[in-house]
């Protein structure tokens, strides 16, 4: 008995899909909870919080809950550290039945005691998961008490999975970060106009380092990535920046706004993916310093960098041009920058989907997209298969769960998520990106896959 699943599309889902047509007002339904029974690709609040906070390298991250939530997030994100590796360990209270019945506060306090005794950390983040939200443990109280007892920071992160979506997790994380930053001892009186923080980058494959090198060349000074390769101390100094730049807005715009309010640090959104975006963003940074010399140096630097990579990029472009791409990623911002990058390589995007894109982002996507492009919100494998086939995509960009799907369909795949191994940021990243596209799209294995 063999069934191939028809392209069933549930009525409810239809509003989450549009096909771009010229001069037509088209709205997409987004920003909503997945419907019950869907094979949704979405993650939870806790997952979102963990994404943002995990790269703080010298912190201990304790997951207060049953073991699973902690096991699945153990060292799965490729955030790199130049210093401590503490953050890569998995700490959990592994709640048991009796804790569920009698409450888990005691166990949490015990876990903090034990970790202080064996590893003497300076800062501990305590994440609550769904169950903790339901049994009603007073996280704040336990954390406060531990802070007093040990004279260290113990910061609660309220991230019960059911209370919203991944985005709410980002917010919970941002709240935790701002509470950490607000430390008067680290405040300096006169700010240097050349100092900035770089928000919304988690140093996957060392991307923060690439950008930091650029900054050194053009004469600006990065206090810290937030949170890529950050330490507690660096985050406390972040309040002294003259301005903030934000790469991944979905996760970090909220923090930027809070920092503006609390520390009077203005912010600007940037993107360092793709050559044009990188160049524009660097110039933007230079302008924000208001320093004529920096602006001039940046212009020279960009010119030089572009020249350095032009010939190699051209080679890749020749090999990749004309191929069709399907995109399915977490945030809308990333989708937008990917469309542009594929354009730079002469490739066409035929399908774009996101898990948590916002309305404005979908509007931009529609503007950028070619006629006939399918645009989706929070989709599932059946829909993905249908549109990939229909549109004849040669390449899918997605996350962990999409990789085997693409391979089964016999098309190439790129992970633009936390499993990427090569940095894709900046000028070097543009080359790596082209290289990865070429590596997969032009592999001989696809010739072996029979057409289904």
């Amino acid at each position, binding site marked *: 008995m063999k069934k191939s699943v028809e392209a069933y599309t549930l009525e409810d889902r239809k509003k989450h899909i549009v096909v771009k047509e010229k001069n037509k007002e088209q709205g997409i339904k987004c920003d909503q909870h997945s419907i019950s029974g869907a094979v949704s690709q979405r993650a939870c609040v806790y997952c979102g919080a963990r994404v943002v906070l995990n790269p703080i390298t010298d912190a201990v991250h304790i997951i207060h809950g049953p073991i699973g939530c902690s096991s699945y997030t153990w060292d799965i994100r490729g955030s790199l550290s130049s210093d401590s590796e503490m953050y890569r360990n998995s700490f959990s209270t592994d709640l048991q039945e009796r804790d569920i019945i009698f409450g888990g506060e005691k166990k949490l306090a015990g876990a903090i005691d034990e970790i202080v005794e064996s590893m003497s950390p300076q800062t501990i983040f305590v994440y609550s998961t769904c*169950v903790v939200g339901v049994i009603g443990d007073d996280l704040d109280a336990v954390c406060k008490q531990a802070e007093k007892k040990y004279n260290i920071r113990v910061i609660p992160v309220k991230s019960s999975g059911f209370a919203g979506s991944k985005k709410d997790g980002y917010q919970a994380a941002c709240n935790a970060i701002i509470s950490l930053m607000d430390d008067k001892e680290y405040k300096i009186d006169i700010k240097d106009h050349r100092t900035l923080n770089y928000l919304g980058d988690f140093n996957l494959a060392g991307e923060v380092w690439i950008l930091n090198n650029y900054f050194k060349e053009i004469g600006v000074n990065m206090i810290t990535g937030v949170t890529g390769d950050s330490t507690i101390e660096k985050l406390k100094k972040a309040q002294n920046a003259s301005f903030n730049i934000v790469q991944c807005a979905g996760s970090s715009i909220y923090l930027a706004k809070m920092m503006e309010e609390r520390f009077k640090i203005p912010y600007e959104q940037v993107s360092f993916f793709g050559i044009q975006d990188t160049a524009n963003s660097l110039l933007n940074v230079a302008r924000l310093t208001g320093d004529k010399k920096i602006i001039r140096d940046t212009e020279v630097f960009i010119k030089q960098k572009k020249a350095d990579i032009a010939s190699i990029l051209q080679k890749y472009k020749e090999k990749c041009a004309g191929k069709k791409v399907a995109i399915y990623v977490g945030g809308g911002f990333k989708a937008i920058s990917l469309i542009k990058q594929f354009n730079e390589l002469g490739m066409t995007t035929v399908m774009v989907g996101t898990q948590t894109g916002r309305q404005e982002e979908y509007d931009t996507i529609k503007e950028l997209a070619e006629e006939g492009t399918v645009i989706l919100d929070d989709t599932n494998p059946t829909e993905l298969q249908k549109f990939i086939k229909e549109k004849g995509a040669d390449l899918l960009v997605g996350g962990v769960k999409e990789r085997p799907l693409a391979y089964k369909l016999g098309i190439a795949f790129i992970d633009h998520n936390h499993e990427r191994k090569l940095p894709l940021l900046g000028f070097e990243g543009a080359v790596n990106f082209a290289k990865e596209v070429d590596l997969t799209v032009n592999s001989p294995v696809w010739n072996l896959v029979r057409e289904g």
Partner: protein
Amino acid sequence: MLENTPKEITKRSALVVNPAKTCQPIGAMYAALGIHGCLPHSHGSQGCCSFHRMHLTRHFRDPIVASTSSFTEGACVFGGKSNLKKGLETVFEIYNPDVVAVNTTCLSETIGDDLTEIIRDTKIPEGKHVIYANTPSYYGSHVNGFSNMTKAIVSHLVNDEKIIENGKLAIIPGYVEPSDMSEVKRILKLIGIPFIMFPDTSEVVNTPNTGKYEMYPDGGVTVDEIKDLGNCEATVAMGKFASEAAAFELEKKSDVEAHTIKVPLGIKATDDMIMKFLELTGKSIPKELETERGQLVDIMVDIHNHYHGKKVAIFGDPDIVIAMTEFAISLGLIPTSILTGTPGNAFEKQINEMLEQAGIEDAKVKASGDLMDLHQWIKNEPVDMLIGNTYGKYIARAENIPLVRLGFPILDRVGHSYFPSVGYKGAMRIIEKISTAFLDKYDMECAEEDFELVM
């Protein structure tokens, strides 16, 4: 990464550092995938489901789908009844599975949703089935989840009455790879024994590439076969922790005699399995299997000196670790640190008996342990090799010892879902891995004058 692990061991009772287990639903999901045309359904928030799918996807490198009730705050206050009812409707309407296997999560368990009642109240389309298992993660581990869902297959689908004896053996392979299930099936066929295997994930999570995505691949035990389980001669359950509960359930329900053996990993456990098959069916051992066994013994003789007397640490799921420890002893290795994250006194008892019989003293043995325990033991009593899942790589690197990957999950190598570890062939493969790991390390690190062509 493990530079913070202190050598000095202090007692921990609240904190788990670097777990050697994960939660029940993922095991339940894996078991459910061993039913043909089955969609696992996670009754809880979407986050859990997403994590479980992601983890299985990483291990098998095949698309793993499951649906979820997608709890919101409302569900937590009013219960998840409407989410599940709506969820099941949606699932049958869009994804059209033969069977939906519902597992609970910590959240729905804590809220106290009564699955029996909810599902009784749900309209299930003609000819379709819903089975369910309670899988709270604050009890046990992923192995219990597997066991619970395997048992649920029996409770919910097997026909109550024995109609006619079907002359088959019911085989429960345990929480092993699809390749292991195929190997057990191959052995059964060689002996000429008719059987029904459940769950059977071969050709579900290691499907061939056809250029097409099948939501319900060819493999898996069918509902008709499951219904027929009550007519089997006897059940052979492999692995006490993962399989015994379902065998007992079948015995209780349909009077099919339950026999629990080890997961057939290693020469002795494979011998035991084959003896059990012969004993239950009166068949005799075919020439091919005798040859395979002879080849295995030959390899063991040829290279016993590569690893004799070396100390090993073994960790992972209890059924696998128990069998692997027995195998290690038969190879002349000395297991000195043996650990599972899954709770259960039976584990420690069985391992200690084996060690005692082999005259191995002062070994550390622990159930409900974590990898910080294991690392600290190794710091105090160094070993030459680590055998376990991918998570062992941190310790292997920190202590510069080779890791032989075995068990679940394996997130950084391929092959496990295509080549067996069970049976005589599987034993040969494990020996090859152990020997190669030692020799590769030696070749890279030995002094120039010790570097040899023939080893």
